[in-house]
């Protein structure tokens, strides 16, 4: 299976990663090799198999719906690359 340049550019767009024009070619080659390797799976018939949803024999726990955390605005903002006292700052989204 080959992943052509167009596929790479589209996927990078979905992943929100800008790509260097000159890297698209080698990425296309790398990914095609990897997908050829993955392609092996098509050899097994899995029609009667249910996909695995969890490797644990337990279902997700529930808990009381109560506040266990909060009031840590400053901590949450601490590592932001651009902020003021109360908000994350991003490039303008509304004209």
């Amino acid at each position, binding site marked *: 299976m080959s992943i052509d340049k167009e596929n790479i550019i589209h996927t990078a767009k979905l992943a929100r990663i800008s790509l260097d024009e000159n890297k698209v070619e080698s990425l296309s080659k790398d990914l095609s090799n990897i997908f050829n390797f993955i392609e092996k799976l098509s050899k097994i018939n899995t029609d009667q198999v249910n996909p695995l949803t969890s490797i644990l024999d337990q279902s997700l726990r529930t*808990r009381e719906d109560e506040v266990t955390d909060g009031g840590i605005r400053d901590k949450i903002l601490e590592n932001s690359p651009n902020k003021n006292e109360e908000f994350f700052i991003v490039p303008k989204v509304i004209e």
Partner: protein
Amino acid sequence: MSDITNNSLTEIVDLIKNKEIKSEEVTNAYIHNVKKGKKLNSFITESFDNALTNSKNFDAKPNYNLLLPGIPLAVKDLFCTNGVRTTAGSKMLENFVPTYESTVTSNLWSEGAFLLGKLNCDEYAMGSSNETSFFGNVINPVKENTVPGGSSGGSASALAADLTPATIGTDTGGSIRQPASFTGTVGLKPTYGLCSRWGIVAFASSLDQAGPMTKTVSDCALMLEAMAGFDPKDSTSIDRKKENYSKKLTHNIKGLKIGIPKEYRVDGMPNEIEELWEKGKKILKEEGAEIIDISLPHTEYALPTYYIVAPAEASSNLARYDGVKYGFRSSKGSNLIEMYENTRSEGFGDEVKRRILIGTYVLSSGYYDAYYIKAQKVRKLIKSDFDNAFINVDAILTPSTPSSAFKIGEKKDDPISMYLNDIFTVPTNLAGVPAISVPIGHDKNNLPLGLQLIGKPLGEQTLLNLALAMESKSNFKQNINKWWEK
């Protein structure tokens, strides 16, 4: 006293408990080694002041009932440490300082240990050679110009070089066991859910599991006991009583049944590894275990399955790095979307981007069923292989890796050949079962080789006992001349 850092963790704990040495002396000895060990590049961040303060506090008011009394520990830089930067080996998190502590490290600290520093690793734990770190390659102390394995390469290197008495890593497809094998140390990937994932930088959440890396099997039991335990903050944490692995540790493995899977005999595997495997079988047999040939028929599909599931989960997990909430932000771009795209392009390295693209592709519209659902079906078959095998055996013995440590740069440009390194370790992550790598011998180039024991879910005690029996009979001797100090 001779150099304290030559001792095992268990020996150091005993010396401290017997008041033969103080925590501060131990800490100073390791700080001394770390300062002399810069060439290995195993540390990203040093935490010496914190370590010394903690050691003095411990000595002033010692509590000898703890499992790790006054022990300095360096940990993989994937565990969030409150107030100490946590990079995951990435430019993206170069300046990230968590405001919280991971559950696993917090468990270690409540048993008397404290942070000595943060250890280098492959970027976001994606790699098998520690060559993808933004902070540079880590060197294997066993031999110059050789990789320590990955992704927990800094952990393995620091441990083998006596820069920390024990350490912890994370293992998504072999990231604890492969570097342990490459450096002649012990590494355990616990059952999925035994150690909390809370506060660990996520790679592939259904596969990630933290575990101990140590010089001896006894140390491994002690570390696992300290770090494991139920955590309500991790929805996949197993709710059960803590085990006393170190107290229950025994050489007695009489009557245990050990499976030898024929599918792990792969083409092109060096004879030396085949011989090592035979040696392991012989030891276990002599100690009273029964060796049984078994089959894990879907083994050959494990790596292709892994390279769908792991990147798919990674692409979702790493979507959080948007340059807004924390981490790196690119200064380029005229609008929000361009800011995201440039941030992620500049902040992530090549291997991480490659895996995000694979993951995004297999999850994208039109491909989801063909790739992701297909992989989850095959994963079910792989898990069933183990379930079936464990009806008849108590554990499975295999090589840890298909080769010994390779040279830096040797596989860097060939992703597939790099991925093949994890051929024996990946299946257990897919099945969620525990596995331990134990050093057993050296190859003709004097590089260490390990064997892997795979256990039933929550069968860590059996694995540790088997590993102890192998360790005591294998006569493995670490052969490191500390060339970096010269």
